[in-house]
């Protein structure tokens, strides 16, 4: 097990460097630069900028300089936001995204799991149909539609909640709900399907035959197997949630990382894009690892050597 974890952790480093290199190449291929705008710059100004940021050097020198900095964990300064280091920007804006993401994740898990489990126990009941229909609706309504509808009702209709921006607890409610909806729905459906399959399997019948109470069959045996599909879905989903989601951050004007990531690409802010890409890729790989480990805990049949 330990060997497996170590091997997986070690592979993250070259993988992240590969991702960074490919991203770097893509940025370089994309036309335009961080300083290009409607007004063309006089050549002297352009030369000054290139000198200031080392863009006048040959590409391979720039590439090796970038890689050696990245290996040391230093992504340099943002090109667009002068005097701001990329590490500072990530550190400053990650908490906003992570707060919304973690809360949405919790809400989605709590609601999704309970709805899914109850629906699977009460299969074909009114609750099952109702919750699964709602879940289908949740899956089909994209968050750029759901967000504005929630705002329209709760912020502009009844003035209960603020329509946007970062602030107190009340500012969190709408974005968290918007963000959670789709995950909630997905988790509910996955849980229901997983549970239905597991609860019909032989080992559950065995457990019941042993005379275990229905509660303990469900909680000790059923859930462990039934949740495998949920775990493999929510692991990477959590990485995505924590690192920020563009649409919700835009709609609710939250200064999170997702928004900044997109802006950095549009601004051709190379160091910032690279920094966030590296951070995201590492985050996703780590969460995938955690998912793989948790399979082993949930399902005794899965072993790592």
């Amino acid at each position: 097990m330990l060997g497996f974890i170590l091997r997986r952790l070690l592979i993250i480093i070259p993988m992240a460097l590969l991702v960074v290199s490919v991203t770097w190449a893509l940025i370089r291929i994309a036309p335009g630069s961080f300083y290009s705008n409607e007004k063309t710059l006089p050549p002297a100004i352009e030369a000054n900028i290139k000198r200031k940021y080392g863009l006048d050097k040959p590409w391979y020198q720039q590439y090796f300089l970038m890689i050696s900095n990245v290996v040391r964990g230093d992504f340099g300064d943002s090109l667009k936001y002068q005097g701001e280091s990329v590490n500072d920007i990530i550190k400053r804006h990650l908490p906003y995204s992570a707060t919304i993401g973690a809360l949405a994740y919790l809400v989605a898990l709590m609601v999704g799991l309970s709805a899914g489990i109850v629906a699977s126990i009460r299969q074909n009941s009114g609750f099952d149909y109702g919750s699964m229909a709602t879940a289908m609706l949740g899956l089909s309504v994209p968050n750029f539609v759901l967000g504005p509808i929630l705002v329209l009702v709760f912020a502009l209709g009844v003035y209960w909640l603020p329509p946007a921006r970062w602030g107190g607890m009340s500012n969190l409610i709408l974005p968290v709900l918007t963000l959670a909806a789709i995950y909630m729905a997905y988790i509910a459906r996955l849980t229901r399907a997983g549970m239905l399959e597991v609860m019909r399997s032989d080992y559950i019948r065995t457990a019941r035959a042993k005379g275990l109470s229905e509660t303990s069959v469900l909680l000790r045996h059923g859930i462990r197997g039934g949740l495998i599909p949920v775990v493999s879905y929510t692991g990477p989903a959590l990485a995505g949630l924590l690192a920020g989601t563009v649409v919700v951050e835009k709609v609710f004007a939250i200064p999170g990382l997702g928004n900044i990531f997109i802006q950095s690409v549009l601004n051709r802010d190379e160091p910032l894009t690279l920094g966030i890409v590296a951070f995201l890729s590492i985050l996703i790989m780590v969460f995938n690892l955690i998912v793989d480990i948790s399979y082993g805990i949930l399902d005794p049949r899965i072993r790592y050597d």
Partner: protein
Amino acid sequence: MRIPDKYFIKSVLLSVLTAMLATSCATEATSRFYGKTEAPKDNVLRYISGSEPESLDPPVATGQPEARIMMALYDGLVEYDPKTMDPIPGIAESWEIGQGGTEYIFHLRHAQFSNGDPIKAGDFVFSYRRAVSPELAALNGYLGYYIKYAEPYNSGFVFVKDANGRFLLKSDFEEAAADRAKPAPDSDGGTEFHKFLDSPERLTVPSTEKERADLDPKIKAAIQGKEFVPVKAEDIGVEAVDDYTFRIKLRQPAPYFIGLLGHQLFRVVHQGTVEKYGKAWTRPENIVTSGAFLLKEHRPYDRIVTVKNPKYWDADMVRLDGIEFYPLDEATTMMNLYKAGSVDAMYNHTTPAAWNEVIKQFKDEYLNAPEVAIEYYTVNVKKPPMNNLKVRQAFALAIDREAMAKYRKTTKPLVDFTPEGIFPKYEEARTKVYTEELKKKGSTLEQWKAREFDPVQARKLLMEAGFPVQQNGNTFSCPTFPVNQVDLTYNTAESNKAVAEFVQAQWKQNLGITIPLKNMEWKTFLSYRKKLEYNGMARAGWVGDYMDPFTFLNLFYSETNDSSTGWWDPKYDKMLDAANNELDATKRFEMLARAEFMVMQEQPVIPLQTQATNWIKKPFVKGMYPNPGTLHAWKFVYIERDPAKWDQNVENIMAERDPWVYQNIDRITATQKALVEQHKTVAE
């Protein structure tokens, strides 16, 4: 635990209720104001300023969202008039212009930085030298190029000194030197530096051998074996004559220069703070400012909180206790915040097209006035068939601009290259010049104005160019036109798409030609357009840097001009140069109008519309006007608690005279007027 079906029914009912509530909100209530409208209890303005500022360092920050924040934090020699955007005294109490329009002498008042240090002429010298230094590499640095030797300093150029210690002069190599060699303006003596600035302009050349390879052979030969002396910060044309007299020497007359000095590049920064903290000097804990407000808090992408600066020279006038800038650029989100009463005003072009009909009804809040900005299509004049003038003219004539303005709802038709309704004096001069020029061609101003839309003439021109348009009933077709060689390219945006589709339909309807549309991501598009890789037409917009038509006409100046059309004519350059050397404002405008006439005859661009400000503010925010750049001198802005005095029917806001605002404008401009009067008396 069986869940009763009753629960299910309840939840369905709840959703229906919610849906009903949502629809009731969507249909607009017929209230007088848009959303929650109560004057805030504290005297703090909450303003949406556009995207996150690149920096709070004035010369480094480039865009308009930045400019608005800089105007709160820093003061310059002059400030913008809140309505006209004309320069009014700032830290400079008054100024004089001399030496044929190349010398500006500013008399400074006794102002202070926010830490209590006095603002002296030396601080302006430092700020200006820093703004154009190659090390700072400010994107806007070129705005300082009018200052003598600022461009060679910014470009890292060198002076050339011969064996006798004499510096080579620029005039030594100018062809027309003989007729242009005016005697150097009289230097009024003073320091060595003063004399140096007033002496004829020295030759400057690139510092590296490689760059010098492209020089004129005559210059190359002349500088062979000579000594090169780098142009230093100390050489540029700014001078502290004494602590409270600041002098700027320009390399050539630029009558619009004073109007440029309100730009953030020219606002004053505190030397000690900049030098002590380096790039961290704008952090709230370090920053020292010179404007009406201080920086209290900066949370990027969220808020920039400023409070009134008690040390500001005109602090008595400032009525706001602070301004909170919210850096947002999502239009729907900001409209929601506005409606919920969480913000009081926002920047320009913020009302989404789909909302316009509704928002327009709030007559006390919706501000739409002409802007010093235009929208047009560039034409690639290097590629056929658009290299044919008649084809270009045909495409320009075949767009119904009046219909477009109706469709766009906020803009005005445009047939020339300078915006309509922004430079009234210039427009007068232009009418006169155009009438004369057109008479020479046997045409009239009415015919010229018909260019707003003239499909018959367009078809005639197209036929003359060899692409006959056939009429079949009510429709037209032009089978010989090479549609595969012409596109209309725009950068991806809903509004650009709407305009492009409109224009496409117009050309189809009036010429029988369907031009394919192409859209691209912004930065990709910029490079594609600039390198003239596009076929046919591409979208462009231009916002004036200062309140003078030259900021538009300059776009076609020089062979490497910024028009992205491939068009250039040395005659045009000469016309502009001559105009800027003219000291009489009316004559100068006439000369500029002749140049505009010339370039519009060549049709390297298809003008579409003059932009409009298109934004909203709560009626209790007063002293804030839809001026041509949406740049607000914040000290004029205040919050009115008495609903009886709130702004009403803001369509006429530019004509209305708020007594308090006018009193203050009069007070501030009195010093400059007095100086002008005094000079008049002396002259008489």
